[in-house]
């Protein structure tokens, strides 16, 4: 009766490489990015000059890393609103480390930053999984707490790029084959996390949990452990972003990273990660982050009135979730009718 006989072609789940490529969730956002770059370049060729491209990559780097981390959390149907505060703490921590030990090897600084980020992420994950409280509430609270700690720690103190070794600052200046070093780091991060999520068992568990956590529990997936992993991963990557922030920008202080959280959520959502978990990929989130940072540059390059920029970003976010929704409705309908005809 209702088993799906020979439904592969009807559903388009056939193995035609092109067909399956087109159905990737990353496609709409990637196309939007390409179109945006092309249009901007036509109007202003400088947009893709060596410097222009370098700037675009640099701008996207930190957002990309954070969007990838948060993406992993959202895939489990959780959220971490405290990422802006975590970034601020780590960035200021980086400044402090250099101030305290100017000759410290840069690798150590990265290690410290990542560890601090991981710790903060772990606190969030711990509260969410142990107390079984919705992550939105917990991390909203932690947003305030971490920011408060940052303020208390930093006070009026700020550390400037000049306080840090030149080699550290050069990470966000020097390039490898035209790609800034910190961007290379970001690309490596995207690839590693993407492989982790797509090709390892714990990674796939995250999707299963986001898809239906009750079923995951029944299935014997260690749900709490995995969710904790996602939060720690997110914290670690946000920590990395914090260190890179200190490398790239002039000053780090009490307010660094304020208000970043919604931008990062927006990047992940625009990149096709469903806000209620279970689907999407961190590659999509990364492209979403690139799209959102590029659109700002692009509007400036196009001399679009700066007052319109934010409104356009808003429209973009709404469009992204609309497209996503329409695609999923169509898919559901296709699947349903194919069931019916096969019944």
């Amino acid at each position, binding site marked *: 009766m209702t088993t799906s006989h020979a439904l592969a072609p009807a559903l388009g789940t056939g193995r035609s490489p092109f067909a399956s490529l087109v159905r990737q969730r990353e496609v709409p956002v990637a196309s939007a990015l390409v179109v945006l770059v092309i249009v901007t370049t036509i109007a202003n060729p400088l947009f893709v000059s060596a410097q222009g491209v370098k700037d675009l990559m640099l701008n996207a780097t930190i957002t990309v890393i954070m969007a990838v981390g948060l993406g992993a959390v959202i895939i489990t149907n959780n959220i971490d609103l405290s990422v802006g505060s975590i970034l601020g703490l780590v960035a200021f921590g980086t400044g402090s480390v250099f101030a305290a030990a100017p000759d410290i090897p840069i690798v150590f600084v990265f290690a410290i930053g990542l560890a601090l980020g991981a710790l903060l992420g772990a606190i969030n994950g711990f509260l969410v999984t142990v107390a079984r409280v919705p992550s939105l509430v917990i991390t909203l609270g932690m947003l305030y707490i971490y920011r408060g700690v940052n303020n208390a720690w930093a006070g009026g103190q700020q550390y400037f790029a000049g306080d840090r070794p030149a080699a550290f600052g050069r990470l966000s200046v020097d390039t490898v084959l035209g790609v800034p070093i910190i961007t290379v780091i970001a690309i490596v991060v995207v690839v590693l996390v993407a492989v982790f999520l797509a*090709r390892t068992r714990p990674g796939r568990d995250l999707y299963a949990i986001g898809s239906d956590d009750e079923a995951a529990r029944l299935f014997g997936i260690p749900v709490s452990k995995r969710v904790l992993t996602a939060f720690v991963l997110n914290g670690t990557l946000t920590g990395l972003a914090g260190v890179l922030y200190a490398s790239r920008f002039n000053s780090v202080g009490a307010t660094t990273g304020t208000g970043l959280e919604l931008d990062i959520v927006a990047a992940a959502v625009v990149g096709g990660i469903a806000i209620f978990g279970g689907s999407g990929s961190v590659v999509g989130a990364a492209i979403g982050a690139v799209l959102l940072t590029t659109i700002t540059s692009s509007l400036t390059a196009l001399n679009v009135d700066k007052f319109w920029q934010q409104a356009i970003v808003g429209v973009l976010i709404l469009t992204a979730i609309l497209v996503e929704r329409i695609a999923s409705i169509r898919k559901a309908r296709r699947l349903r009718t194919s069931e019916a005809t096969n019944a």
Partner: protein
Amino acid sequence: MTIDPTSDGPSPTATVLELRGARKTFGAVVALSSGSVRLRAGEINALVGENGAGKSTMVKILAGVHQPDSGDFLFDGHPIVFRSPAESKAAGVSVIYQEPTLFPDLTVAENIFVGRQPTTRLGFIDRAAMRADARALFDRLGVPIDPDRVAEGLSIADQQIIEIAKAISLDAKVLIMDEPTAALSGVEVERLFGVARALRDRGSAIMFISHRFDEVFGLSDRITVMRDGAFISEHTTSEVSTPEIVRAMVGRDVDQLFPKQEARVGDTVVRVDGLTRAGVFHDVSFEVSAGEIVGLAGLVGAGRTEVARALFGIDRYDAGSVTIGGRRLAPRDPMASIRAGIGFVPEDRRKQGLVMDMSVSRNTTLTLRTTLSRLGLVSARREREAAADWSRRLQVKTGSQELPVSTLSGGNQQKVVLAKWLATDPTFLIVDEPTRGIDVGTKSEVHRLISDLAGRGIAVLMISSELPEVLGMADRVLVMREGRLTATFDRDDATPETVINAATGAEPAHTTTTTETRR
């Protein structure tokens, strides 16, 4: 014949998993009072019992989802308590739950292998191997499901098959299947049985739950009977007959259960004409008259609930019409249906019938919220009065009207649902699985209530998966199969055989001669 479960059975096979005198409560609800079962290697044990007897609760204890409040629990002769499904799985227990537990966003292949996907030498998931393994499993079950499609949108039957594939792929020591065949057709059931027998012959201990006696007798080596959360008896299949099992299950003669009053059937109240929803149900037409109880039978997934939901206005329909009291009912508008005099007791009490956090009194008066209010404001006093009034009429047992309805037992919760609909003074009442998961005592009370309502001229549409309930209560029985109305029987023509045949399509020739679908 009845065997004491503690004494060894006739065949000297080793007991793998055993539960004795297990008790489990959920708040005020006693799901299991004294559950016992013994699973032996190389043997298939069928667990039977009425809805709500506690079968699934026992399955969940064996699976580590729930932990027993008390009782004995032995695995390979050693005391054990599984604290989580992961533990039971690690011990070699593989479970198919009654409700499919698939991940809608993952592919079919992944759904089967999550957590133990085949990997390449580098430790990465080998998708090709996973796909091939999934396909091999489906071949074994003889069903062609595409391993690469996502699970979302699969039919209940396909979902069930994936659950089966998942469970057998573990090659577990113990395989527990909670109503795996509820949504399957004959061919698929046969294939599943083939696989189950093969597993048994290789030494697995299998527990199998089904409400269909032909399956129980066709597959099992032993039958364990449960009633009201307690173990009743264990039998060797070859030495027992269906009536014996039924008696053990219900604990009394079937006829006594359903006190059907003779009804004076009046004028037609509701007419459903050509109701269709693409892919779900097709061209469904029937009438219900005042004072008449119409039973709607069919297998799970036949689309009965869907028809009722569309009729009432919860879901949309693509074609057809619903007429009540001579007036056409607006589609997609439950409020309009309520105003027109329809009440609907839904099948899932906990998610659809009640707001579990709300008090008994608020729940009872939720349907009366506009009637009880003036200028949009509800009178608290009148609300309390109405609620207390209806609780008393239906003899709802509760510590207080102000307690959350979640603290009530299943049967009393169902009475609250009935009360809130009776309070609207309906002319047409739909009851979907009205006695699912409630104890026997309350069950007959509910039946009496429904019967009484019909006696007072209300038209009743009763959807039920329990054949005795349908046969005992209904003046007329409609049968659905795969989204279509396949047969209509008058009370006297409806026998278990005719209805099951119409529901499964087993002997279409037979059904066509005795029935004619009313249009």
